[in-house]
Each structure stands twice: as structure tokens, then as C-alpha cells.
């Protein structure tokens, strides 16, 4: 997609690619009447790879929720060869749900490598894990997630409850992905510790009192003590552990890792967390899938433009010290009506004018009265070279906005320099006086006395 300005011949690189795939949502922001199906910005086809051991009916609330939101679900078991997730290097679905937490062997098309390939090709993935070791466990480490040793689920003794220790009600911390009024969520599964990767988006963290243990009982507590004596190395405990963690790749695809598939089950959805309070699992499942399938927190740069102050058309090159206006149009995807809407809500957008290093870094504020438009005027540096207008806006959970437009900044033309300089008056005076002197001299020479020639003539005549 060329969201950049195409009227200039300057280089416009828009890394941000939304319409690459022929998903329905993508290309119809201007044709809303066609859209009946998906709420995702990416397309509505979903492949659910469901372990036969898991009863499909036990997840009916989650799956039906997806169907209601307009997704076409296709089910297959991990060992079925068809339908393949990727064929001829083309992903076949817009989203993949991988609910096979205990499957040890998959069909040949599902490998850790092919799943990464899917993400690189802009397919979103929702992956469930379990305490058991599967091929997916090794994949998790590629996403900067550190899983505890096999067979160590999360347990917690608090709060006091009638469920086993490994079935834990988790109170979500507030974040933009989850609904604000979310009741505690039942969770059972494996936690993971997060490495320092800015692409990770924590969605649900473990309760502070919880820890990973060797068994479903309490026997693992000793290991915990050992680990804490080593300064916390290898300690899978506490609220920094992730239970459900999103990952947004550099190209914008999203993957969500869920520590236990039961979070989405009907059983947990209907289970009460406390007297009379239904668990938040149903809403949680909807929120997580909405984020993963790029319904929520999706932005894009529609276009960028630049021109000189007091002009309207862009130039191929700018002159040093020009005053330049740069503006960008940014939209946010609205899943309710499945359209892109102009979005002025970003308060901290920045523009950089870069050649190797940013020469200008300035706020790019929204323009009042023009929804979705952000604009700034600035003076170009006094330095010629090939510059780039760079928008690089990366916020956790939100789509990364990246746009880079190349424009050469050239020195003034030979006729754009000031003509008369006050500093040059000595030279002007010198030139003028020499010219005058020459004129006077010539005049005197020509009009002057010619006695000598006369004398010469006279001598000749004599």
C-alpha cells in the first residue's frame, strides 16, 4: 500500500502495511455498505486448530462470540493435513487460533518456523500453552517469553476458595486492551516470565502471591525458596509473570500467548468468582481476541504531505532554511462499524527531520477542527543533504506508526542569494571609483592637449 504522497517524485517509504492482504476489512473504509461480516481490520477468516481432546462445546461461548462478531471459523485438528495454514507461501487465513496446548506432534505444515512465517505475512495468532512440553514451548522463547520447566503450573493459595490451587481468580490490571469493568478472571495454566522486549504487550499478569510449582500441590515451594536464595534467578513467581501476553511484530501482526486454554472455556466463563459475581472470562476472551485479531487499538497513517509555508503543493526539493509544513492523516479502526475513522487522539506524536541523526524533532500536534490531521510547521536546518520526515510512534498495545518520506534539502540556487550586501560596500565603492577613474582618464586622454602630436606633424611637414 502506498499511503505516502504520490504526487512528489520523492521517495516515500511507508513501512506500515495494512492492505497487503485481500481481507475484507482492509480495503473498504470508503465502502461501508459492503461490509457486513468482519469487525477485524484484517479479514474474517479464522482457522481454529483444536486438539480433539478439547471438547469444542466447552468453548462454545468463545467461538460463538467470534461468530457473532462476524468471523468465519474453520476447525481442524492439529494432525489434519488440511486446510493448511500456509500454502505456496501464502497464508490461507487471516487469523489462526492454536488451541492445542498438549499436542506433541502437529501436521507438517505447523511448525514453529511456519508460525513465525505466518506472523511475518501479517496473520494474527492466538496460541494457548499448557504446563506440558510441546513444540510450542520452544517457540515461546523466540517471543522473549521464558517458560518454567515442564510440568510446573501456576498455583496460588490466595484467596481462599473451594477450587484447586491451580485454578486461580486473577484480577486484571487496568490496561487499554481489556474492558475497564472486567471482573476477575479464572485462570489455570502455565505462567511465563518476560524478557526485555519492547514488542511484548502484557495483558494479564499473575497475582502477586502466585508461583510456578512442580505439581498441582504445594511441593514445589522448596524450589522457590532455593531460587529466591540465588537472588531470584529462575524464579517464576510474583506479579511480573505473564499469564496472557500479547506480542506485536515489527510489521504489525499480533500474536497472543495464553498460559492455559481454559481461560476461554464455558466452564470458567460461567463460574462465579465470588458470591453472585460472574467471572470476567467471557468478556476477557472477547477483549483478547479483539486485540489479537486487530480490532482494537489499530491505527494507520493514511497519508502524509509536506509543502512550504504559504504554498499548497509539495516540492521535490526544499531549500535550506525553508519553512516547511508537514502534516499526516491518521485513522483508527472502529470495529463497531468496521470502518477507519479519522483519529485525533494521539497527544504525543512526534516528527523527526532526519539525516543520519534527527536535525529537527518536534511535536506533531492534532489540528483542531480537522479530525485525524496532525500538522506542524518548522524551519528546515541550515544543512543540505537527503533528509527524511520520520514519524515513529510506538506505544504498547497500539499499532506502531511508522512513516518515512525522503526529501532532499538543497542549498539556494545561484540566484537565490541576496544580491546586495551591506558588507560588500567597500568592493562596490572600489568598482565604482575604478570605473569612474577610467572614464575620467579616458576623457582627459581623448580630449586633452595634443600639442605633441601637432609638433610631430609640424616637424614632419617641415
Amino acid at each position, binding site marked *: 500500500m502506498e499511503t505516502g504522497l504520490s504526487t512528489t517524485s520523492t*521517495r516515500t*517509504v511507508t513501512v506500515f502495511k495494512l492492505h497487503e492482504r485481500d481481507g475484507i476489512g482492509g480495503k473498504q473504509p470508503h465502502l461501508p455498505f459492503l461490509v457486513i461480516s468482519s469487525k477485524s481490520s484484517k479479514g474474517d477468516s479464522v482457522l481454529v486448530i483444536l486438539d480433539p481432546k478439547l471438547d469444542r462445546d466447552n468453548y462454545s461461548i468463545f467461538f460463538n462470540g467470534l461468530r457473532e462478531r462476524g468471523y468465519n471459523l474453520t476447525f481442524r485438528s492439529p494432525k489434519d493435513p488440511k486446510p493448511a495454514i500456509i500454502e505456496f507461501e501464502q497464508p490461507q487465513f487471516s487469523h489462526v487460533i492454536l488451541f492445542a496446548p498438549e499436542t506433541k506432534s502437529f501436521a507438517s505444515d505447523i511448525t*514453529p*518456523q511456519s508460525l*513465525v512465517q505466518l*506472523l*511475518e505475512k501479517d496473520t494474527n495468532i492466538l496460541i494457548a500453552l499448557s504446563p506440558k512440553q510441546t513444540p510450542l514451548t*520452544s517457540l515461546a*522463547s*523466540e*517471543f*522473549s517469553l*521464558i517458560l518454567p520447566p515442564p510440568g510446573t503450573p501456576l498455583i496460588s493459595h490466595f484467596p481462599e476458595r473451594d477450587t484447586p490451587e491451580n485454578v486461580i481468580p486473577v484480577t486484571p490490571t487496568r490496561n487499554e486492551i481489556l474492558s475497564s469493568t472486567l471482573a476477575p478472571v479464572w485462570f489455570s495454566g502455565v505462567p511465563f*516470565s518476560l*524478557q526485555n*522486549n*519492547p*514488542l511484548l504487550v502484557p495483558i494479564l499478569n499473575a497475582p502477586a502471591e502466585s508461583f510456578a510449582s512442580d505439581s498441582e500441590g504445594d511441593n514445589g515451594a522448596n524450589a522457590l525458596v532455593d531460587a529466591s*536464595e*540465588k*537472588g*531470584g*534467578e*529462575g*524464579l*517464576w513467581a510474583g506479579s*511480573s509473570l505473564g499469564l496472557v501476553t500479547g*506480542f506485536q*511484530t*515489527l*510489521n504489525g*501482526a499480533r500474536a497472543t500467548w495464553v498460559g492455559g486454554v481454559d481461560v476461554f472455556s464455558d466452564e470458567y466463563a460461567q463460574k462465579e468468582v465470588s458470591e453472585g459475581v460472574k467471572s470476567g472470562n467471557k468478556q476477557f476472551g472477547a477483549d483478547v481476541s479483539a486485540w489479537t485479531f486487530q480490532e482494537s487499538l489499530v491505527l494507520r497513517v493514511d497519508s502524509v504531505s509536506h509543502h512550504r509555508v504559504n504554498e499548497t503543493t509539495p516540492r521535490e*526539493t526544499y531549500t535550506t532554511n525553508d519553512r516547511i509544513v508537514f502534516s499526516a492523516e491518521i485513522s483508527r479502526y472502529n470495529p463497531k462499524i468496521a470502518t477507519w475513522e479519522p483519529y485525533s487522539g494521539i497527544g504525543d506524536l512526534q516528527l523527526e527531520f532526519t*539525516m*543520519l541523526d534527527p536535525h529537527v524533532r518536534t511535536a506533531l500536534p492534532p489540528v483542531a477542527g480537522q479530525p485525524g490531521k496532525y500538522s506542524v510547521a518548522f524551519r528546515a536546518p541550515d544543512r*543540505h*543533504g*537527503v*533528509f*527524511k520526515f520520520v514519524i515513529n510512534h510506538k506505544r504498547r498495545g497500539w499499532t506502531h506508526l511508522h512513516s518515512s518520506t*525522503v526529501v*532532499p*534539502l*538543497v*542549498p539556494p*540556487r*545561484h540566484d537565490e542569494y541576496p544580491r546586495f550586501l551591506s558588507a560588500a560596500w567597500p568592493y562596490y565603492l572600489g568598482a565604482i571609483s575604478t570605473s569612474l577613474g577610467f572614464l575620467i582618464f579616458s576623457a582627459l586622454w581623448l580630449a586633452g592637449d595634443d600639442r605633441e602630436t601637432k609638433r610631430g606633424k609640424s616637424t614632419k611637414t617641415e
Partner: protein
Amino acid sequence: MTTKSAYLLADNVSPATVTNTSSLLRIIALALISGAAIASRLFAVINFESIIHEFDPWFNYRATRVLASQGFYAFWNWFDPTAWYPLGRVVGGTIYPGLMATSGVIYSVLHALNLPVDIRNICVLLAPGFSALTAWSTYMFTKEMKDESAGLLAAAFIGIVPGYISRSVAGSYDNEAIAIFLLMFTFFAWIKALKTGSAFFGTIAALFYFYMVAAWGMLSVFVFTLHKFSPRTLGGYAFITNMIPLHALALILMGRYSSRLYVGYSSWYAVGTLASMQVPFVGFQPVRTSEHMAALGVFGLLQIIAFAELVRSHVSSKQFQTLLFASVIGMGILGTLAIVGLTYKGWIAPWTGRFYSLWDTGYAKKYIPIIASVSEHQPTAWPSFFMDLQFLIFLFPAGVIMCFRQLRDEHVFVIIYAVVASYFAGVMVRLMLTLTPVVCVASAIAFSSLLDTYIDPTEPEIVEDSSTDVDAPQTEGSSNVAAPTPKKAKKAKDAAPLPSGPLSDIVSSVTAGSFKRGERPRGVFGLDTRLAVIVHAVGMLIFFVMHCTWVTANAYSSPSVVLSSQNPDGSQHIIDDFREAYYWLRQNTPEDAVVMSWWDYGYQIAGMADRPTLVDNNTWNNTHIATVGKAMSSSEEVAYPILRKHDVDYVLIIFGGLIGYSGDDINKFLWMVRIAQGVWPDEIQEPNYFTRTGEYRVDDAASATMKNSLMYKMSYYRFAELFGSNQAVDRVRGQQVPKTGPTLDYLDEAFTSENWIVRIYQVKKEDSLGRDLKSANAFAQGKKRKRTKPAPRRRAIQ
């Protein structure tokens, strides 16, 4: 007739007929010389094709195309965003536009005449065309030195001498192509101005000087390198700015000050300097840099002397001496103070590094690696003097001595030129070019004296009376000799006392009509002696022509863009890898894909592939070049951020190991290391690239730093696979390459040309999962990652 004649001359021909015939013959001879000069430069077109050669000409060609297609003002203000990405290059202000303007004018004129000639053909054939003009201007110049016959010989020499052809074959579209003509013509005009005291010729010299300043960016004798190194460079014109003042100064010191000198020099200097300052790249250099100070100083000196002459003619000699004494001291003090003050203020920069590099040839190597790295800046090897000049190099000293014999003002010029040019030709290979014209002139003087002596039919008289008051008889043919009449010679003798001693005896023995009164008569007796010498002389000429033709055809006509080799059956095999690769880039990459390569190939990539480059042959920014050097000589992990920062999409390297092309990047690699080391001495160290025993190797014994460097990896990536189970051998280095070649994580091989000379790699995008590309690659190949544990978050409790 009191003289005897060795052979009979037709004496019934009127002098007018002789004059007319000889001038007609001269014109025909000059036309033929021009034809030969042009024709011998066409080997390149015939053996290969009509193509621009080498490196710099590609830029000149590209600039000329802009000039031809977009007009002069667009060219003048051209900012090239694709060069030196992302710094860009202000082309209009960093070139000498004379060459492009010349082609542009020719192009416009031809098109105005409805001759739709392609600009490329104009560029290709410009150098041969101008070589014909050079022959003519050399003729004019030498004619001032001796006579027309010497002029014709000089024209013939310069027309075919390899030292000049090496820079002016068809396709060698460089500043030197037109500059030698301008050089010779400026010198001619200067000599003419000096001889006649004409402000007109002084101005002509100044105009051609201006043209030369506008044209010659590449070469300067006094401080040459300089151009390649810094934007404040000095062009070849500095040669003229220094030759002419040096000549004037020498004349003053010899007590030969005259009003002719004053008029000629003043008009040349004033007009020429003002004109040359109109070239933006020159700017205020003529009044600020040390290289131009000589011209300014001599100008000032001349004014003082002229003023002193004026004063002397008005006051008594006693007063004058006091006055002179006082003013000399006063001015000495003032001048020193002024120079010290100006240098201190930084307005003039007399002692730049390039200044030293000329006097101390080791200077550049020690301190400025980028200068020393250019092969043309290496000292000249002795064989190349013979290769480029053949028998002229032996005649050259004889010609200079001939000049001493007469030592008129213009001969002083040739002597100074000869001395200076010889020194600089020894310093740098490239400066052979400036030596060549004076060698041709001096040799022509010597050779024509030889011919004069032996073709002259006058037999020496045995009689005591040796006053030869008869004009030398006219001879026929192109060897028509207007030997200096005794009168003239006597005049010259009066003007310049002959150097006495054995040397002068030898010299005088070969010069006709100059034996002294009262001595035993000397001269050439009989026809056999004459024939013997002349046959040998002609033989030398014939061998010279054969040598020139051979050298031109075999050594100097290769475009270097296209290589040729011989098949086993002797037929020519064309190796066209460069163009293959450049066209691959042109057709398979996006227009804005940035290509990184060593700077040698920058102009070619810009010209043929039309892609932005990081560095090119206009090596104005040492740091940027060092950045490329660092990327090439570091490991992949270190190089990758550099590549990403500069938006590099492709990396292009030259690898000769398969076919034995020795000018490849591995052989240039140490220069990259050295230049990078100059800027990052902590990160890049040259000794790390040698084996423990100090050898530069690429086989198993190579050092780890060498093997990990990007350049090594790119060069030998998959090289061993080519040999199957056999041992892979690098044919340039003659070393066996390790069987398991290097692996690349951050680059992908994109293209390798037919003979592997050009290899192009694509820089990978960052991993979408934020991993480093090495582990991403390991994952893609199915390697298991080591299990990790959460990092400790707090300190251990003791």
C-alpha cells in the same frame, strides 16, 4: 657561392615558391599529424566499443548528460541527492565545469546544425578531438622555441606519445582530455606575450588560463593529490599559476626584467585571477592558499620593480641606492608581518598536508591513507618512463641543453618546466602527463637540431675565413629548415653567454654554423656521414611509432569497465561482469535502493546502475569513506547497525578470486582497514588482519578478525561450493580457501556475476520478532535455543 654543397639543390626555384610550398607542406603535415593523433586513440572504440572508460569519466559523463538535457543553470545548481547518501553532493560547486561545458557547447552547436549526435559519442570522442588541437598548440609553442620544423616534430611526438595517449584515448572523458591542450596553448600565449610585450596575448593567456581553471580538476603538479582529498582542492591549473610566476621570477633574478615582461605578466595575472575566481569551486583560493601565493608575490614584485625603474629614471643614482636600501628592508619586514598575521588569522592556509606531500613523498602515506591509497598517486617506476616516452626520454636532456645554448627568455621557461615536471613525474605516476609535453618539446628541439645539422648540405670550409654571412640555403621537403641565421645566433650569444666547458664543446659540435673563429673548422663532411646519421635517426622515429602503436593498442586502450582476455585459441574473450551487475541493479532493485560499495565504484554505480551510493570517487568526505571502511572491515554484528543507519539496501563488492582479477576488494581491503583505523583507532586495528607471522592471508591461516570481517565473508561466501570436492583456490592470492566457507546472517546473496567479479548482497530487514538476525537465522534453520531462566531481579540476600 662560397660554400660547397654536399648534394645538389635546385637553385632555379623562386623564394616565394619555396615559402608557399613549405607552408602548404606544413599544413598537410599538421593535418596528417592530427589525423594520426585521433586515429591512434580509437583503438579503444575498435577493440571494445564506444563506451565511457574507468571511473571519473563516468561522473563527467553523467554531469554532461544533465547539462545537455536540462540546460546550464540546472547543471549549475545541480544538487545530487544520490551521491554520498545521505549527505548529497552540491555538484555545481564542487566540480570544474569546463569539460562538461565544452561538451555541452559542442552538443548544442551540432544540434543547432541539425546533426543529432548522441551526447555519449561526443563525450567519447572529445579526448581524441582535443588531442589534435594539442598537437597544433604544441606546434605553435615549439615554433616559438626554435622553428617550424621543430614544431612539426613536437606536434608529431605529442600526437602519438603514450604518456599523453594514456589519458586521452576515446572514452577517457576526463579533464586531462582537454587540459593538455589548454596547458600548451596558455604557455604559447604566455611566451608570445612575453616576446612581444603584448597585452593582447597576455589576455589571451589569461582567458585560456581561465578555461583551464574551469576544466582541470584532476591534476595539479604542485600539489596534486589534493583534489581527491578535500573539497578545497587545487586543480591542475595550479601548475600554470606556478609555472608562469616561476618563469617571471627567474627572468627577474637573471636581470632580464623588461617592460614586455611587466605588461605580459600583469595582464595575464590580473585578468586570469579575476576570471578564475568566477569558478565557484575555486572561489577565493587564488588570494588565500599558499599554492597561489607565488603568483601573487611575483605580481607584487613586478609592480615594485616597475616602480623602482620609474623612480630610477627620475632621481640620481646615489639617492636611488639609499631609497632602494630603505624600501627593501621596510618591505621585507612588512611582508613577513603580513604573512604571519594572515596565517595566524586563518585567512590564508599556507602549510596544508597536501603541500608537504609533494616535497616529501612519504608524507601522504604516513598521515593521509586515503591519498596514498590511490594507485595513481604512487611513485613512478623507472620502466614507465620508457614505456610512456620511449626514445624521447633520451633526447629530452639534449633538448634542454639546446635551450641553454641560446637561453632566450622562452628557453628559460622550457628549462624551468623541464626541471619541475621531471621532479613531479618522479613523485607520482599520474604526473607523467604534465612531463610529457615538455619532453616532446625538448626532444623535438634536439631532434630537429640533429636533422638540421645533417640535412644541411653546407660543407664546412677549410678556408680560415669562417664568417658565414650567407643565409642557410633552403632545403626542400618537410624537413625544411630555417636554421637560425648566424646573425640571430650571434645575437643570442650576446644575450646569453654560452656556458663554457666540455659540455658546450659537445653541444656546439652538433650545431651547425657555430664554430668559433680561429679554430679548426668543424662540421659534417660528405654524404655518407649524413646518410648514416639520418638513417639512424629515421630508424629511431620508426621504432618510436611502432612502440607507440603497440603500447596504445595493448596497454592504454582498455576501458576497464569491460575486460578482455584471450581464449586458448587466441581469440578475444570479453569479460563484462561489471556492466552485467550494474544493469542487474538497474533493473531489479527499487530506484531508491541505496548501494554501498568501496568508493572506487561509486561513479560507475551512479552512472550505469543509477542508484544512490554512499561514497564515490569524489573522495571529499574522509569520515564517510571511513564509515564504509569500518562496515566492510567489522564483523556482521557491528556492521549491521551502520548499514541500517545509512539505509543501505545492497552491498556491492568486487571479487577476483575465481577468475584472477587482481584489482579486487580483498586486495584493496587493507586500505579500507587503514582508512577506518584513521577515524576509529580503538575499534579497527590493522595488525589484527594479519596472521601471527605478519602475512596477509585468506586461507585457513587467516586471522579471526579477517575471517569475521564483512568483506571476507562476502567475498568467499559459497566460494568453496563452486569447487565441489576439490580444494577451492583463490587465483589472485594463490591460496587455498577453507572448505567450509563463511556464513552470513545479516546479508543475503542477491546477485553474483558470471565470473564472480561482482557480488551483490542484500541487507536483511530487522527481524520482525525483535531478535537479532543471528538467532533468528538459527531458529529458521531449526536450531534449538538454550533454555533460559528469568533474570535475577534483586540482589541475593547474604
